[in-house]
């Protein structure tokens, strides 16, 4: 049971981040809020993947197997938003 301590630290960090994200949603951040919210969500995800899902100790292949899903999601979002955000730039 040598990995207990990192798991507990991670758990503590996750709950702190949760408090932070709730707090941020009440702060007057305006249009910056989504970026803060999702940055915190990504930080949480990294903690879960790295420590809970043990990607820290896994080989490259297994990291790729999980990472590829996120990478492809990024492709999907990036290119569909290339459309959605630039619509209507050339007159209506």
């Amino acid at each position, binding site marked *: 049971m040598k990995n207990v301590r990192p798991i507990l630290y991670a758990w503590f960090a996750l709950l702190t981040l949760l408090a932070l994200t709730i707090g941020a949603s009440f702060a007057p951040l305006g249009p910056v809020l989504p970026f803060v919210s999702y940055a915190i969500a990504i930080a949480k995800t990294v903690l879960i993947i790295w420590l809970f899902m043990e990607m820290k100790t896994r080989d490259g292949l297994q990291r790729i197997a999980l990472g*590829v899903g996120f990478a*492809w999601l990024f492709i*999907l979002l990036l290119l*569909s938003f*290339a*459309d959605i*955000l630039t619509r209507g*730039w050339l007159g209506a």
Partner: protein
Amino acid sequence: MSPSQVNPRMSQEAVPDTPEERRSYLAEGHSLRSWLLTTDHKRIAILFMVAITFFFFCGGVAAALIRLDLLTPAPDLMSNDGYNRAFSLHGIIMVWFFLIPSIPTTFGNFLLPLMIGAKDLAFPRLNLASWYIFVLGGLFTLITVVAGGVDTGWTFYTPFSSTYSNGAVFLAITAVFISGFSSILTGINFIVTVHKLRCPGMTWGRLPLFVWSIYTTAIIFVLATPVLTITLVLVALERVFGLGIFDPALGGDPILFQHLFWFYSHPAVYIMVLPAMGVVSELITNAAHKQIFGYWFVAGSAIAIGVIGFMVWGHHMFVSGQSPYASAIFSFLSIVVAVPSAIKVYNWTATLHKGEIVIDGPLLYALGFIGLFTIGGLTGVMLAMIAADVHLTDTYFVVAHFHFIMVGGSVSAYFGALHFWWPKITGRLYNDMWARLAALLIFFGFVMTFAPQFVMGYEGMPRRYHVYPQVFQPLMVMSSVGSSVLAVAYVLPFFYLFWSLRYGKPAGPNPWGATGLEWTTPSPPPKDNFETVPVVDKEAYCYPEQGRAGEPQTQQAESVDA
């Protein structure tokens, strides 16, 4: 057989026509139960083959109805709704129940473990589950037909599919949704198998190119299908419960549906064509009896197609109301993805150089693939040009373009694979003269069917038209006549192949003098494939330098006593 019917590519050693000493996978049991509960990848491949052949003919009947109806510009055979249902079912069945599973689930399933020296796939029970899921999806398709069919086209564009269509959209979506899980499970199974079950010595650089292709296809299965799954769920919810997601009347975005749909459906085209490319690499090298030209370029281009293929979907949407800037990006990326395809075609041509080429059935199918795929691919480059696409998209030009790739290309390769590995699967040799005849008929019937459609499309004939302007009738008739030739050519192999099951000569382990590990096993292979774990010490396609005069060898190490 007369000498003209003897294939010189085949080894002429006499094969004793006696029962195998070891039992083949086919002899492991003859009960229905022994087939339906099998976990043997070879038997599951046969199960898939039976299922997709059935759907191939279902989709073919729909195609025949369409072509028959289009003989005249007036609506005479079917009503408008009937026609819409016919082409929708043709598309749905052919795409999801024939083309996508065609080569991966049959030859992929059968050959992948054999080619890498494994006893089975990594998850045999999952493999069987994959077949049952596929059959369940197919069952829903048949229920859809009974329930009156569906009239959305295979693309299910919203808001037509979610709100306005009067067909059995929910059932059709359920059918495709279910079959998607079959793809995902097959994909995971193949990827894990290639990574974890290669036999000793089978390094990545020694993998047969068919394995590279199937591996890339599996990656696309795993990464593209989930997006289709969730998209179909959303459309179904919108249809059944009236939720607002893509419905513009509620503020939803119908173009978003097209983005999500084509994120799957464009890579799906590569699901159809990559395995075909793998087959052609095998067939060409064996016919030329020569190492492939540029192994790493051919293997690498498969991966490149698989990855870049995910970034080009927007070229289906140049006139959809997509932002012109996004269109410009997608147009550029579409040109980029054409490069690895070109590399493959040129490498196959170069492989023929200085080969010792036997022109027989399998090679003719492979050449048919190369010719039709080249035309289909290059017209695809034309369609990637936005200004040209604005005129040509949604016309018969596009119909011709993708049929050249998916039918002319992939189906030719499927038949090529069927002929090349038939002796391995069944242990019998067929009559090659008939094979050559069928291959030529398929090629010419195909060109006659679809070449006129390029012209019609350029002249402004939109696709999915039941009633069409009189001026197009001559070309339509030509196309319909061609399709009847094509129909005969597709049926023909079933006769001589089934004939060979009973009357064909026994094949022997390696009738073509090929190098892959699958040819070191008896034909048909025993249940566990290999008696001892094979060891590989040679690269793929290690054909002797002296051509056919040299000693045939396989990738298996000589020193290992089997």
